[in-house]
Every structure is written in structure tokens, then in C-alpha cells.
């Protein structure tokens, strides 16, 4: 009897890894999925936080893809280990703070360790040559295979025909002819293949799999690094960068202002760990203060809080500032006029 071959697929939640997995499953290989949680992932939680996304199903796309394909999914928390990739990427960053090449090498390396530990035969990714400027160029693809240690146990079914033969092909576990030769940024081949494989519902291809490809997010992370003088971060730090409006009116502190009720509820969860500002005379969202905030900063911060409350047109608003020390400051201030909220305060 021939041995049942097993592969692990890197499941991002997007269409490409879903298609790649399906192709390999159709060849009779047992496939299980692996999904890495870096803390920067664009996932269900952002929908959970924001009200505006209320109508969308709050699903985790990786889990959903696994369910559609009928495969197991192992979600692995790599938040701690991933810090080194974000802080010191050997191959540098992409257009924003996305260290895509180092990230890919790291994830494939982890997957390689996983297949050794779990007695699987090879790794599948949904990568396509030329799709991403940095990590998915023809020249960089061998780097991922080599530096991760996976070598020819790394199969990219969507573009395998454009790449050297891999172990699963050579050993006849999978027929090279059943694999594809997709390249470039176009999506039409993937969409046609999805149709052919009867995959109807899938997450729309996004700009990237994580927030690090997002300029606004990267700007906030840079600001955090610069003002702290240290690049280390916690999961809470990077989650908070996804939430609210961030204003830095003075170099020593930043305000995180909820934009809707969902974000307000989320920030409420942090109120014991931060100095907070709340307009008590009018409906308003909670504001978190990050940094070295002192009483001398209170007046300006309270005026800004007034601006972002429903009392913005009132002559005066009542504001309560709960300092991290436990001390409480109560102020009556005139809300700041819109023109006085400076553009450069927005992080």
C-alpha cells in the first residue's frame, strides 16, 4: 500500500492559499492548515471593534477557509517571536513597515518545523510569482525555500510550473501537470480557477495580509517607536494602533479617541491601565492617554476632548480626567475650535 502523503498549507484566509490547498487536496494528499497570528493580522477582530462593519459577518477568514475546504486548522501564536522580524528585518521593509521577505522565511521555517514534529511531508503556500513587489518575485522565491530550510519540500501549486521541480513532484506524490503557472498581479486566472473548483465565496484579495502594509498603521507604529525611543512592543500596543483616532498634541503624550461605540467599548477594557479622559456633561467616547501625561497637560487635552464630544458647540463642557495615579481632575473648559486642532497632531 502506498503511504498517504500529508501536507500543511499556510492559510492566510485569502483566495490564493485556498486555491493552492484545493489543488493539492484534489491530488489525494491529506492537507491540514496552519495560520500564524502575528498581532498585525487583518482579521475578524477589527470588524468586532468597529461599528461600521456591524453588517459584515464577523468571521475569521482563515477559519472560514478551513471550514469550506474541510481541513483542520492550527492557529499558532507567534506574537513574541515575530517582534524580531518587525524590528530587525534582515531584508528590510517593503513600501511601509512590512518585512515581507523575512516574514515569509520565518513562517515557512515555522511550518517546516511543524511538519518535522508532526510527521508531514511537505508545505504548500498560495504564493504567485510577481504578485508582491518584495516577497514574491522570481528572484526571492528561492530565498524563502533556502533560508527557511524547507528547500524542495516547499510547493507553490499556483506557480509551480515556473519554478524548479520540488520533492512532491519528483516523487510522484503530485503530478506537476496538475499544477499551475500563474504569474503577475492579475487576478483573473485565480478567479477563473475558483469558479472551476466551485469556490464561490471568498475573501476579496486585499493589499496585504497584515496591517504592516498599511501606511496609516505604519505611521502610527513609527510614531510609537520614535517617541518611546525603543522598538519593543506588547500585543496591546499594536492592537491599540488599530483602534481610534490618534492625536499627539504634545511630544510627551498621545490621545486615543474612539470613533464609535464599538471602539469605545474596546477602549473601556483598557481604562485601568491608562490615564483616561471623559466629557461628562455631554455624550462622548472614552479617551485613553498614552505617555508621560501631567497636570500641566490637562487643560489642552480637556479642550480637545470637548471637540470630540457631542458638546463641541457648547460654550463649556465638563471633563473628568482620571490619572493613572488614581487622582481625579475635574475641569470646565470651552471645547477647542476645529481650526485649532492642528493637522500635524494627527498621527
Amino acid at each position, binding site marked *: 500500500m502506498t503511504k498517504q502523503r500529508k501536507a500543511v498549507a499556510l492559510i492566510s484566509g485569502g483566495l490564493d492559499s485556498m486555491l493552492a490547498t484545493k489543488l493539492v487536496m484534489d491530488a489525494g494528499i491529506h492537507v491540514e492548515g496552519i495560520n500564524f497570528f502575528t498581532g498585525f493580522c487583518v482579521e475578524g477582530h477589527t470588524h468586532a471593534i468597529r461599528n461600521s462593519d456591524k453588517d459584515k459577518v*464577523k*468571521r475569521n477568514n482563515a477559519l472560514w477557509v478551513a471550514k469550506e475546504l474541510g481541513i483542520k486548522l492550527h492557529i499558532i501564536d507567534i506574537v513574541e517571536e515575530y517582534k524580531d522580524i518587525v524590528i530587525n528585518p534582515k531584508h528590510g521593509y517593503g513600501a511601509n513597515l512590512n518585512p515581507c521577505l523575512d516574514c515569509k522565511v520565518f513562517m515557512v521555517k515555522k511550518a517546516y518545523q511543524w511538519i518535522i514534529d508532526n510527521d508531514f511531508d511537505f508545505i504548500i503556500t498560495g504564493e504567485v510569482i510577481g504578485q508582491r513587489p518584495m516577497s514574491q518575485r522570481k528572484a526571492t522565491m528561492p530565498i524563502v525555500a533556502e533560508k527557511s530550510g524547507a528547500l524542495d519540500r516547499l510547493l507553490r501549486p499556483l506557480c509551480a510550473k515556473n519554478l524548479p521541480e520540488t520533492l512532491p513532484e519528483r516523487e510522484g506524490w503530485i503530478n506537476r501537470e496538475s499544477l499551475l503557472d500563474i504569474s503577475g498581479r492579475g487576478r483573473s486566472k485565480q478567479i477563473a480557477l475558483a469558479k472551476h473548483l466551485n469556490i464561490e465565496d471568498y475573501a476579496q484579495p486585499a493589499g496585504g495580509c497584515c496591517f504592516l502594509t498599511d501606511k496609516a498603521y505604519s505611521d502610527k507604529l513609527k510614531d510609537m517607536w520614535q517617541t518611546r525611543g525603543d522598538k519593543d512592543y506588547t500585543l496591546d500596543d499594536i492592537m491599540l494602533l488599530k483602534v481610534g483616532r490618534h492625536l499627539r498634541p504634545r511630544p510627551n503624550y498621545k490621545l486615543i479617541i474612539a470613533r464609535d461605540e464599538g471602539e469605545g467599548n474596546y477602549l473601556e477594557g483598557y481604562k485601568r491601565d491608562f490615564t483616561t479622559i471623559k466629557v461628562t456633561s455631554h455624550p462622548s467616547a472614552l479617551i485613553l492617554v498614552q505617555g508621560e501625561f501631567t497636570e500641566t497637560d490637562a487643560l489642552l487635552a480637556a479642550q480637545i476632548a470637548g471637540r470630540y464630544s457631542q458638546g463641541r458647540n457648547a460654550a463649556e463642557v465638563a471633563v473628568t480626567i482620571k490619572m493613572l495615579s488614581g487622582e481625579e481632575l475635574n475641569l470646565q473648559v470651552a471645547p477647542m475650535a476645529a481650526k485649532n486642532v492642528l493637522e500635524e497632531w494627527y498621527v
Partner: protein
Amino acid sequence: MSLHELDARRLICPMPVIRTQDKIKALAPADILIVYCTDPGVKQDIPAWCEINGHEVLSIEYEARDIIVTIKVGHT
């Protein structure tokens, strides 16, 4: 069969799912795990994870701000 609890409050998806997954690794088939969460995302994510990994969600209940998911560990 034994009863276990997991506090996943304040964690945002997928962290409650990861914690559930890691906890279940150490449990035996037919054990019951009660997970306390606050992120509404778990209402979709924990059942989806359980379904693909062969565990059964017995109930999802609400108590104050908590979402309480009860899972019966499957044979995997």
C-alpha cells in the same frame, strides 16, 4: 470526563480561539471546557474552529458582559 475552565476575557479573536486550542490539546475526549470571553467574534470563531477540529459546542450563553462557550472535547 472532567470539567475545565478557561478565562479568555478581554482577548480579541483569534486569541480566544488559540487559547481554546492550546487548552484542548491537554484534555481528553469527552472532557468539558467552559470558555469565558468578551469578544463577540468568538460566537463565530470558536464554533468554526470546533467544527473543523472535531469538537462540539454544547452552548453559548451570555452573562453580564461575558460570552460563555461550553465545548465537549472530541476524539481527535
